């Protein structure tokens, strides 16, 4: 087990390292001088050179990478060219907004997704299964931006139940927060609910057809107990993977949702930063995002290993 964990840790580090090299080199391959972009076309060459020196852009590329990554490890992410402030402060300020939309969306998706999936599997082939399966197909194929805009049109413009855009922190006014967050959370969770439901259904069907379920039935175990105690428990392992994968989708979806609902979170920040070649923000965000997913995957792998000894052997 210890060997398994050490191996997973090493692989996780390797992945984060590869991502850091990728995002660093990509941002440095972009055409245009970041210092020139920051100061504008009218700035004098001396000023640009001075800024280049300040941003370490005049040093060899390997040194630049080393300076950036060692800064990241110390918690110093450098200064943004667009906002003229430390990147860390910007991220710390914006992260709560993305989290307060993303986490509720994730929780709702997991709960509803598993419930729908289980219902479909248990009522396999019945009308409710057919309808829910069809709805999940629709959910997976519907673009988030379209759901968001349709939601704004129906609930904010036509019915006037909800505000059109904007964001209020939950700590400030929880009622206003829920009103503002309802549509973004809804837009973000639809496709996640659908994919979790879909996966739960097919995993659950696999389990239900296995011998130990038949034995339990033959022994006269109550139906609900079979589903919740035996079948669902064995289905949970693959579902955990799906949930970990959804963390990635929450971050990806926040790009779209924050754009539509005018929320100044990490997704919106990344959008601005990419368009303005603010390479330190892009690099830091990409690295943090991949760190989050890698940590989630690592946790899932360890959980797997704890639950199922076979995986320890084969995957190690």
């Amino acid at each position, binding site marked *: 087990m210890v060997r398994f964990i050490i191996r997973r840790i090493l692989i996780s580090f390797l992945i984060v390292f590869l991502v850091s090299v990728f995002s660093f080199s990509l941002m440095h391959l972009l055409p245009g001088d970041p210092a020139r972009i920051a100061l504008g076309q009218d700035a004098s060459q001396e000023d640009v050179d001075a800024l280049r020196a300040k941003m370490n852009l005049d040093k060899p590329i390997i040194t630049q990478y080393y300076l950036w990554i060692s800064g990241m490890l110390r918690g110093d992410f450098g200064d943004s060219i667009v906002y003229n402030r430390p990147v860390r402060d910007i991220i710390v300020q914006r992260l709560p907004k993305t989290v307060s939309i993303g986490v509720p969306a994730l929780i709702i998706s997991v709960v509803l997704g598993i419930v729908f999936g289980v219902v479909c599997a248990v009522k396999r082939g019945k009308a409710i299964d057919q309808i829910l399966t069809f709805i999940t197909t629709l959910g997976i194929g519907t673009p988030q931006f379209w759901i968001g805009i349709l939601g704004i*049109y129906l609930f904010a413009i036509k019915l006037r139940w909800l505000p059109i855009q904007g964001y209020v922190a939950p700590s400030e006014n929880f009622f206003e927060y829920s009103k503002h967050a309802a549509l973004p959370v809804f837009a973000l969770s639809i496709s996640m609910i659908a994919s979790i439901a879909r996966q739960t259904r097919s995993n659950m069907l696999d389990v239900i057809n296995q011998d130990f379920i038949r034995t339990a039935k033959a022994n006269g175990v109550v139906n609900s107990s079979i589903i919740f105690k035996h079948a669902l428990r064995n289905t949970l392992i693959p579902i955990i993977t799906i949930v970990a994968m959804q963390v990635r989708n929450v*971050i990806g979806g926040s790009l779209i949702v924050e754009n539509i609902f005018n929320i100044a979170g990490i997704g919106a920040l990344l959008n601005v930063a990419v368009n303005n070649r603010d390479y330190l923000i892009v690099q830091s965000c990409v690295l943090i995002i991949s760190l989050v*997913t890698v940590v989630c995957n690592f946790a899932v792998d360890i959980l797997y290993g704890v639950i199922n000894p076979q995986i320890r052997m084969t995957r190690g």
Partner: protein
Amino acid sequence: MKKKNDRLNQAIRVFFSRGIIVKISFAIIVLLILVAIFAPVLTQYTETEQHLNDKLAKPSKTYLLGTDNLGRDLLTRLLYGARISLEASVLSSLIAACVGIMFGLVAGYYSGWIGSVIMRLTDAQLSMPPLVLCMVLAALLGGGVVGVCIVIGITIMPGYIRMIYGQVLALRENDFIVASKLVGQSSWKILLFHLLPNCFPTIIVMFTMNLGTAIMLESSLSFLGIGIKAPTPAWGSMVSEGYNYLVMRPYLSIIPGLCVMLVVIAFNIVGDAVRDAIDPRLRGKL
């Protein structure tokens, strides 16, 4: 030969046995292809033609679905948008398939350090949300149709690499591969003529299923303004342009979004049907 025909018939029967929904989806795709080919014949306007006297006109006989903020006919832009969507999805899926299959074959066949390097790079790529990766890559490759296709192709590539890698690992142990090695066949011949054909069913299924994903990514990128640039009529950018006039002319953004949704769902449903027809064992895996 007869046996082969029977299997084909069986496959087609299963394809349509899902009933009316699959047929409708199939019809939507056929319609998309026809519209993409015949767009110039179907409308009297061109996609960038501006009628500045008729900005934001309501639907009428002259403009069947009205015009946008620059006086461009919405229907015309939708028709030409079908072209962009189809081009983007097919081209990017082809890029993903070709490159992904190559890497997957190599990684699975030489599973030593080459395999590890390829698979770890794939893991690294999968640790980034697809849309974030697309965005960063799009900044580098620019906003043309080809640039966007390369970006999306790279983004959906890991799916192919993982799938082919797994298949090759399993196939490699078969007697016919060992036999071809023993008679001294070169590695690349084994890869191309023995391993690759055995992966074809999976590849066809993955390809069909990816067409929808590619359209979704393309329209999301265009919606964010980093995909295909104006004035090219991409459905995603039409949604975001129309979004500014949501109160006055809601259909300007809702109709293009509806097109994206219908086409993506149609591709997904047909993809599922193709999977069940070709290889039902893949259900739940793909």
